[in-house]
């Protein structure tokens, strides 16, 4: 669509496709950042209502302008750098998680045909990018020169490394079933089945992925690196102003990305299951992006729901769960999927 | 065994030590010398007939000018089995202001003894970690003594931590918005 508009203006060939790509990036970036801002609002509203209160109410009707006010506030806040900090690393650290989280978006297809880079190793690329964010956290913890952030950084390293394994293994079943690493092809592969979503044959994988994704994004009940009551705020305890906001943004983009992968790999992406479409053919007229967004928002809601319900894990229990439960389960899932695929 | 009998029992066991047994409002107090206080407490704790197993409270009292020996350390012992409360008051003279610690009998005596040392200056011999507890470590004097004033203008002799705060507050005045 964008390409045709650009070619109609008269720019063709390489230059045209580059401009089209830049426009697409701008669109994705803008839309995602707006969603990130409103994900915080959504979270505060959801958790507020779960906890018998209203959430933000003052800025705009029902506090609808709160995220914008927050953004402006953190942008103009004084950027405090501790005297004993390693200044260069301290300044670089918050950029890395944001960069890696945004990088993941490059391979996410939002609806049929709309993807920034339709590469054939999409899933691998996402794993690589999402593990990069751990560097930012470790660097933040180390360079702050504070014992609390140092402990937070250490916890995060251990946690991300352990759960990365489970996260990767849980998706192997999907790869076997769809015979591809390309996210668009994975979605298309799901359409071949009557149920239209891999969550039904891959329930084990989906379960492991869900839990590992919580740990990967440092969300409750796995928010040990920040563990407010133990480590005060963990790795970003010394950060303020916009640098602090960057960590926050990275967390929310990470959450959106993880939800997107879950939607694409297990719940059929922007498509509806064939049996639903047969029953209600008129639903086919609804654009795919709507279903995609709805599914993502359901996932994000689950994140908030769990955060407001569950207590925090203890460090050793977290490691036990990761290595003794999730990884064996993921391996079992791979074996079963492979056997079924081979014999049927 | 009720507290009156227990008090008599102590007099029987430690006739040299017990100075007086007093009763007020159906509570018994035994006034003893401080030298064998640990033996008395251990006896009360370990004898199965007495079985005073809960040290409710340990505190010091300054009888400045009211009694011959200036200080008293007061132990409130309670027997969960016989439901009796006994008060042991050990007299501690001012010139040698010390008494044996009972921490190895009652672990819970640790902090109350430190507090008594902090606020009254009674030294507990054999205490594992006798430091000031409520007041700063460089504080001078023992506030619960009767000769310690409730209010006074110390000027230069004020506690250093307080002076530092005042100094800092003055320094920060220049950053205040006009």
């Amino acid at each position: 669509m964008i390409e045709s508009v650009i070619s109609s203006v008269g720019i063709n060939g390489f230059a045209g496709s580059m401009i089209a790509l830049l426009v697409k990036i701008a669109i994705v970036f803008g839309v995602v950042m707006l969603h990130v801002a409103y994900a915080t609002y959504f979270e505060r509203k959801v958790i507020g209502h779960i906890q018998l209160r209203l959430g933000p109410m003052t800025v705009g009707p029902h506090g609808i302008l709160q995220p914008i006010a927050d953004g402006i506030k953190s942008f103009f806040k004084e950027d405090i750098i501790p005297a004993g900090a390693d200044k260069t690393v301290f300044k670089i650290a918050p950029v890395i998680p944001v960069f890696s989280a945004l990088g993941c978006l490059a391979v996410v297809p939002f609806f049929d045909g709309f993807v920034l880079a339709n590469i054939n190793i999409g899933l691998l690329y996402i794993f690589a990018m999402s593990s990069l964010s751990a560097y930012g956290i470790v660097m933040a913890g180390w360079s702050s020169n504070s014992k609390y952030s140092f402990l937070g950084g250490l916890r995060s390293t251990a946690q991300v490394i352990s759960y990365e394994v489970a996260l990767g293994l849980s998706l192997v079943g999907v790869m076997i079933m769809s015979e591809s690493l390309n996210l668009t092809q994975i979605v298309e592969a799901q359409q071949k089945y009557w149920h239209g979503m891999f969550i039904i044959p891959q329930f084990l994988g989906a379960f492991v992925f869900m839990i590992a994704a919580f740990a990967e994004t440092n969300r409750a009940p796995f928010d040990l690196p920040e563990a407010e009551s133990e480590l005060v705020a963990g790795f970003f305890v010394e950060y303020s102003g916009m640098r602090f906001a960057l960590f926050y943004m990275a967390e929310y983009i990470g959450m959106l990305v993880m939800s997107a992968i879950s939607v694409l790999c297990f719940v059929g992406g922007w498509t509806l299951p064939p049996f639903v479409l047969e029953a209600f053919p008129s639903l086919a007229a609804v654009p795919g992006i709507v279903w995609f967004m709805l599914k993502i928002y359901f996932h994000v809601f689950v994140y908030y729901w769990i955060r407001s319900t569950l207590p925090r894990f203890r460090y050793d229990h977290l490691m036990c769960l990761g290595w003794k439960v999730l990884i064996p389960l993921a391996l079992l899932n791979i074996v079963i999927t492979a056997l079924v695929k081979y014999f049927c | 065994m009720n507290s009156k009998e227990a008090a008599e029992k102590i007099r029987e066991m430690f006739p040299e030590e017990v100075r007086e047994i007093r009763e007020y409002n159906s509570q018994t107090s035994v006034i003893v010398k401080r030298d064998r206080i640990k033996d008395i407490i251990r006896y009360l704790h370990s004898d199965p007939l007495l079985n005073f197993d809960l040290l409710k409270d340990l505190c010091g009292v300054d009888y400045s000018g009211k009694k011959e020996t200036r200080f008293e350390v007061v132990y409130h012992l309670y027997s969960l089995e016989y439901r009796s409360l006994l008060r042991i008051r050990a007299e501690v003279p001012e010139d040698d202001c010390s008494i044996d610690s009972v921490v190895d009998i009652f672990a819970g005596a640790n902090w109350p003894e430190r507090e008594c040392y902090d606020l009254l200056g009674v030294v507990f011999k054999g205490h594992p970690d006798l430091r000031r507890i409520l007041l700063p470590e460089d504080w001078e004097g023992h506030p619960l003594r009767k000769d310690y004033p409730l209010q006074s203008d110390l000027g230069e002799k004020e506690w250093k931590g307080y002076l530092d705060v005042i100094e800092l507050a003055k320094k920060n005045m220049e950053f205040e918005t006009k």
Partner: protein
Amino acid sequence: MPEQKGKLRKKELTINMGPQHPATHGVLRLELDIDGETVVKCTPHVGYLHRGTEKLGENRTYLAALPLTDRLDYISSMANNVGYCLAVERLFGIEAPERAKFIRTMASEMARISSHLLWLGTHALDIGAMTVFLYAFKEREWILDLFEMLTGARLTVTYPRIGGVRNDVSEEFLSSLYKFTDEFPKNIEEYETLIDQNRIWLQRTKNIGIITAEEAVNWGLTGPMLRGSGVDYDLRKYCPYDAYDKVDFDVPLGKNGDTYDRYRCRMEEMRQSARIIRQCIEKLPEGPVMTPDAPKFTLPPKERILKDMEAMIQHFVLVIKGPVTAPDGEIYSAIEAPKGELGFYFISNGTGKPYRMRLRSPSFIHASVLPLLCEGALVADVIANIGTIDIVLGECDR
């Protein structure tokens, strides 16, 4: 290092938890030596909130020292007031009238509920379950409103007086309190559905911070800390004061002495408190709320002071000299405060001011047990342990 060839120097990381830390419930400071995530050594430091209450008490009349007790355990100021008034009454040998006793019992149990609710909320928040906090605070708000209705104040109530209570209860207050006791047990169930069977909660509390019965007695622990270890010691049953001998209630006991058992104990205590309040309202006798001896201890009402010469003189004497009929004696009197045994030891010398006022505060003793609980545990357990001992630093530092 050249002098230690082939040998790595190993040192624990020392972190300073508090006095400003979200989970230390005030200004407690813990010096933790940690090896990885394991605590090797824990040294608590207290005293940041020391206000010299005992010294102040010695320099005030018996009447004037009452408001000081509000500021000890400010979460349950009513229980402190009751304890103080009871101690002075026992020292003077007077007794409050029956109706006042029931009102005091009722009010102390309200304080227990409010204190336990705050404990539940913050304890759960420390462990990471944040919704319980807001659920518990909803009911606590209700209790505080009831306090306001009864006394005019929400937190520092100064409601009981030596020889009774300040004012009689209204019908309106009683009916709304009755409604509260009706609904409150259902709300407790709601908190329990959130955390009681939750596996993470169980993992975080079961077998954490174990104190055996012998240890608990030896350390001088009282209240739910002692009962959680299975020792049946409750002053309300052992030596009943006020109207506790006229109401029916159970004392919940734990078995293992771990954080979970103490949690269960406190939850059950809240139910029993609601039960006691109900019975108090049902059995509330008619009559005065101040003892006939009261003129010797209580200020006469303002309108009488302005009209009546005698009342004026009495007011003057009470304010300047205090109740001068004080006997020459000593008394140790304790009540079962929400946190444990709150004891007052008075030595009087015949003047209107106590010669020595000693406060035995449960928080002080309970804070001293922290090294026993924390050493060998993980950093996350330190937080659970601070929560389970349920201390208020105002009372700990006095």
